[in-house]
């Protein structure tokens, strides 16, 4: 019987031990479980939202693509020669080929577009299809005539079929007229029916291919060929045969490569959000650690008794760990439910990308993924178990004889806390920060942050002594002196109280420094790239914008000092990566930095070569540096250009290439323009010139053209920036609140546990007021130490974010800026919270009769 009892506690005893403790201190249990719950909830919510957004994005893509087996895409919106179509159709293994004209269109009743990112709703993807071919390749793109089959047909040049999303976006119904503008041409149609198979997500419009070519200036061109493979055909061989006949301005796209592209579109952003959520979970882990440490310390007598009665160490460890696991389980369960609710709320309020701007179109449908829920729950339980392991082992290690006699801080104040584990972890973190990205993600950067955090927390006892040592040398009033001595003598207890607050403070500081630096750099960059008075942008003009005549008319507008016309078009350089933006703009060969925020000096261009200036992300993604060459697949053939410089760009995460206007027109054969930067003549009014410019625009482009001034554009850009970081701010705030709650509970618990000490102090003549003073000082000092450590650690981690995580995930760099105001607020909040809690707890501890307190404290 005794031998059995020693192996493990009988279930009843185990339950009694846990429940007894929890009944005595329900708040602490709740806080611990809540910390885990919040961490799990955030992680799960962010994961859910990301996954949902990605799913709906993929669905939107497959809606437009009509689920063809594979596709040929043009590398630019100009598409490729239609002569490819019969060649593709005749390939062995191809059962059906459906030629497609695909244009970005706006419906003309949408009014003048506003200069902001929210105008995705006015955009409609206009597809020109050969309905007879599409019927067997992409049947979901075939319109259902509203009058029943047999009436209007896909051949009717006046008929347009809309997806439900497009009907909703235009506010029209079948039978109405709809006017669309695309590629600089406007044309109106009768809505003949609905694309029933196109899903709810995508604003799609389908017309006949011949009319699309004719009316929208696409004669002889296709943007896409959808391919259905013959049954049993080997997809790889068909792809190979297809690749052999492909012109240089087209590429093969499969569901796989498309998914990868959409994945890489937002991967870094999603991973960063998930990491932030994990950080919240980690903070929760520290709180569980605090709670468990305290509860173990308080029950050391109980545990000692059990040990004396024959319970083995392993069983004791198992008991404490099991407590943690139960705590984690409760937290995880609540967290999963909370996370689902949170995700639902976030998706409803902010949209599928939490305001990040990565998934501009389409609605999002939330689903519950059981596997992911299980994984996050397991993570929560795991964190709780791990956080309980250390206190459990401490409890098991304690000498039963010593512990039976006295509870509380059993460490000898004369022993110097060890510094090397913390320093080693910090050093490891520093080393990890130097590592390269793994799988295109800054995983080592995150590992570095975790190591720094762990190192910082581990070094806390040592650090607390180091910070307090100078104060000890001075003369202080007794209350303050007592506080200092107490903290100095029991750094382990201080560390336990502090680890949560250090973790959350440092993480918050790191994020805040990064965001401040980023915002400041973006602001500077905006000032640099927007030197002109008026900016003009033709919306949805990828396939054609302002022609030469229109440019001349605009340039001749009275009041215009000078105009810089810009042509931008997307260009796909890699099937796995989203398109880069190729732009043609006036570049001063002698001083290319004049209108471009160049990083470093441009290199001289060898004679006979074409200079290209690439953006910073472009250089990272394609491994390009000044002096390298890059080949551009353009309509005129493959063109090799010389990388003469790199410029800072925060706008196009997937890269941009700038050519001089003359080079751009020579290589692309495209002299139309999509953008213009206008400087007004001295004395001219900006608004008057804007009106005059608008009046001189070609009629069909007027509704597509937006005007803006640099001030507006800067404000808009920063608004978008703040919106995309809104979630980051929210996560930070949650982390700090958890930290504060942790400090409050830990500190009050520690204070309450010291009732006997306070009784003793009262007995030797210390006044009640002095004890309160002592506690306030202790709290303030503890808060101060925590905040200083958190700040230092946070600044270190911010450098990892700025110099490792950001360049590796978003491929841009920034200059460090410090948010001093936030730091000051943080210090004040933490110090006063710690002192306040200490005083409140002290008042409660002192309310008991001093004599009784000395006799018994538990």
């Amino acid at each position, binding site marked *: 019987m005794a031998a059995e009892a020693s192996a493990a506690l009988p279930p009843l005893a185990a339950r009694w031990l846990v429940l007894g403790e929890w009944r005595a201190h329900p708040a602490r249990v709740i806080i611990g479980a809540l910390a885990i719950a919040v961490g799990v909830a955030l992680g799960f919510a962010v994961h859910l939202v990301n996954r949902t957004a990605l799913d709906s994005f993929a669905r939107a893509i497959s809606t437009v693509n009509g689920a063809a087996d594979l596709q040929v895409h043009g590398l630019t919106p100009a598409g490729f020669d239609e002569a490819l179509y019969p060649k593709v*159709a*005749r390939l062995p293994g191809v059962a059906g080929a459906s030629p497609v004209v695909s244009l970005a269109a706006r419906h003309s009743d949408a009014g003048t577009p506003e200069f902001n990112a929210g105008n995705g709703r006015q955009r409609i993807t206009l597809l020109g299809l*050969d309905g*007879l*071919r599409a019927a067997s390749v992409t049947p979901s793109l075939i319109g259902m005539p509203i009058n029943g089959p047999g009436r209007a*047909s896909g*051949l009717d040049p006046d008929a347009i079929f809309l997806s439900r999303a497009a009907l909703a976006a235009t506010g029209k119904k079948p039978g109405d007229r709809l006017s669309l503008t695309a590629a600089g041409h406007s044309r109106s149609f009768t809505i003949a029916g609905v694309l029933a198979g196109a899903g709810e997500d995508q604003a799609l419009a389908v017309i006949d*291919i011949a009319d699309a070519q*004719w009316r929208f200036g696409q*004669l002889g061109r296709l943007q896409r060929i959808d391919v259905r493979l013959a049954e049993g055909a080997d997809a790889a061989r068909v792809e190979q045969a297809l690749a052999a006949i492909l012109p240089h301005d087209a590429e093969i796209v499969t569901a796989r490569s498309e998914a990868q592209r959409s994945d890489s579109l937002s991967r870094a952003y999603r991973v960063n959000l998930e990491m932030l959520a994990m950080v919240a979970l980690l903070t929760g882990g520290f709180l569980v650690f605090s709670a468990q440490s305290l509860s173990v310390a308080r029950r050391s007598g109980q545990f000692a008794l059990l040990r004396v009665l024959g319970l083995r160490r392993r069983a004791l460890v198992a008991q404490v760990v099991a407590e943690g696991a139960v705590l984690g389980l409760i937290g995880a369960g609540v967290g999963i439910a909370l996370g689902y609710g949170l995700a639902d709320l976030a998706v409803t309020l902010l949209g599928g990308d939490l305001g990040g701007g990565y998934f501009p179109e389409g609605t999002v449908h939330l689903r519950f993924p059981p596997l992911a829920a299980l994984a996050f729950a397991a993570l929560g339980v795991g964190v709780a178990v791990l956080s309980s392991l250390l206190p459990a082992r401490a409890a098991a290690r304690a000498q039963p004889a010593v512990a039976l006699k006295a509870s509380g801080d059993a460490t000898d104040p004369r022993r110097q806390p060890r510094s090397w584990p913390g320093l080693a972890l910090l050093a490891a973190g520093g080393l990890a920060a130097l590592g390269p990205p793994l799988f295109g993600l800054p995983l080592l950067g995150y590992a570095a942050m975790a190591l720094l955090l762990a190192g910082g927390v581990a070094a806390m006892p040592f650090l607390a002594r180091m910070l307090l040592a100078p104060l000890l040398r001075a003369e202080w009033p007794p209350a303050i002196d007592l506080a200092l001595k107490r903290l100095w003598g029991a750094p382990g207890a201080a560390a336990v109280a502090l680890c949560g607050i250090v973790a959350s403070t440092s993480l918050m500081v790191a994020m805040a420094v990064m965001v401040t630096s980023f915002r400041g750099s973006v602001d500077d960059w905006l000032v640099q790239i927007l030197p002109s008075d008026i900016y003009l942008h033709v919306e949805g003009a990828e396939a054609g914008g302002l022609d030469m005549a229109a440019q001349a008319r605009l340039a001749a507008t009275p009041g215009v000092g000078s105009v810089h016309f810009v042509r931008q078009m997307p260009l796909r350089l890699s099937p796995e990566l989203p398109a880069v933006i190729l732009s043609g703009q006036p570049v001063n060969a002698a001083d290319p930095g004049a209108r471009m925020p160049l990083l470093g000096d441009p290199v001289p261009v060898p004679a006979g070569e074409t200079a290209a200036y690439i953006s910073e992300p472009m250089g990272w993604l394609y491994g390009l540096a000044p002096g390298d060459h890059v080949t551009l697949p353009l309509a005129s053939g493959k063109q090799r250009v010389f990388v003469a410089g790199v410029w800072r760009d925060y706008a196009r995460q997937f890269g941009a290439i700038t050519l001089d206007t003359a080079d751009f027109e020579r290589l692309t054969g495209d002299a139309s323009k999509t953008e213009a930067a206008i400087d007004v003549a001295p004395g001219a009014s900006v608004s008057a010139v804007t009106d005059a410019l608008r009046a001189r625009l070609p009629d069909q482009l007027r509704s597509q053209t937006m005007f803006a001034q640099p001030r507006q554009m800067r404000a808009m850009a920063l608004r978008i920036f703040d919106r995309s970081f809104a979630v980051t701010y929210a996560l930070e705030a949650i982390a700090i609140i958890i930290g504060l709650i942790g400090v409050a509970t830990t500190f009050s618990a520690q204070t309450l546990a010291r009732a006997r000490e306070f009784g003793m102090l009262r007995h030797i003549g210390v006044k009640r007021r002095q004890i309160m003073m002592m506690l306030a000082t202790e709290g303030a000092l503890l808060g101060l130490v925590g905040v200083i450590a958190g700040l230092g650690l946070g600044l270190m981690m911010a450098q990892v974010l700025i110099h490792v995580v950001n360049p590796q995930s978003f491929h841009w760099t920034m200059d460090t800026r410090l948010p001093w105001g936030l730091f000051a607020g943080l210090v004040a909040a933490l110090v006063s919270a710690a002192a306040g809690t200490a005083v409140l707890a002290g008042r409660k501890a002192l309310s008991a009769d001093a004599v009784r307190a000395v006799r018994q404290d538990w």
Partner: protein
Amino acid sequence: MRLLALVFLLLLGAAAPASAPYAVVKPGVALRFPADHGAHPQFRTEWWYVTGWLKTAKGEDLGFQVTFFRTRPPIDTANPSAFAPRQILFAHAAISDPATGKLLHAQRIARQGFGLAEAATGDMKIVLDEWRMVRRADGRIATRVQGRSFALDLMLAPTQPVLLQGQAGYSRKGPSPAEASHYYSLPQLRVAGTLVRGGKREAVTGTAWMDREWSSKLLNPAAVGWDWLGLNLDDGGALTLFQVRNAKGGAVWAGGSLRRADGRMTVLGPGDVRFLPGRRWRSARTGATYPVAQVVRVTLDGKPRDIPVTPLFDDQELDSRRGGGPVYWEGAVRVPGGRGYLEMTGYQSALKM
């Protein structure tokens, strides 16, 4: 008189505008060959329609049908796009196998162009993806079609001269002289080739009938359907019989022809042909009831003669409603002293134009 062509016009939304400048069918236009074997793109619709009986090596009797249609939609001819649907080609093929008890069929459709879908003028040469119908220099016609459940690769050898229907190829379809088509047939075609069913290839031989017809206006507004019968007689004769029905089941128009083995030609008018309903078969699939064993009363040389028709099997119905098409019956039939194909339309619901 072939239903699918009309359906197909309907599908393309081409039924409405009468203003399109189509060529008009007129009497007294002499047909010239081989040019008239080729396409007539200025007319609204046209077909190359082959039906017949096949015998496999094992001795099974099968019916088959291979048809290519051409139609010219009423579009804006100013559109310079190579995709402008100036001509649409459509092809349909079916196998009637009594062992299966229903039809196997397949189809192709495309707008003409890019060499993928072409109906040549000058001689018979029609390409629609991998489907073909090409007249060779020696006069034989090679055709190849391929569906999911079967494939046919046949050589059709004429054994008789061209049979001009109606008045030297001008064939009336209704009371108005404008309701007419240019119409000739190639009966008694000797067939040899291969049939692939369920992945198995087998040699087949047989006898077939080709109808060539082009027109811009076919049907009288009162018509709701029709019956058409083309029979290769065992003695080498060729008998064509048809009627256009109104809503009451009466004949809006009827006609046909008999060419005897020695080449003597008799043109049959509305008074010479009467379809008398015989045994009826009800389709469980569509609920339509077809007079699958009609008796046709033909007045030849002033003497009425009844020709009882027996189907190869009852369920030779085609339900193309899912593709927006009609329900009709088209299958292999026997008559005493001959074999051929019967088409019956408008029995499930009236054909609306």
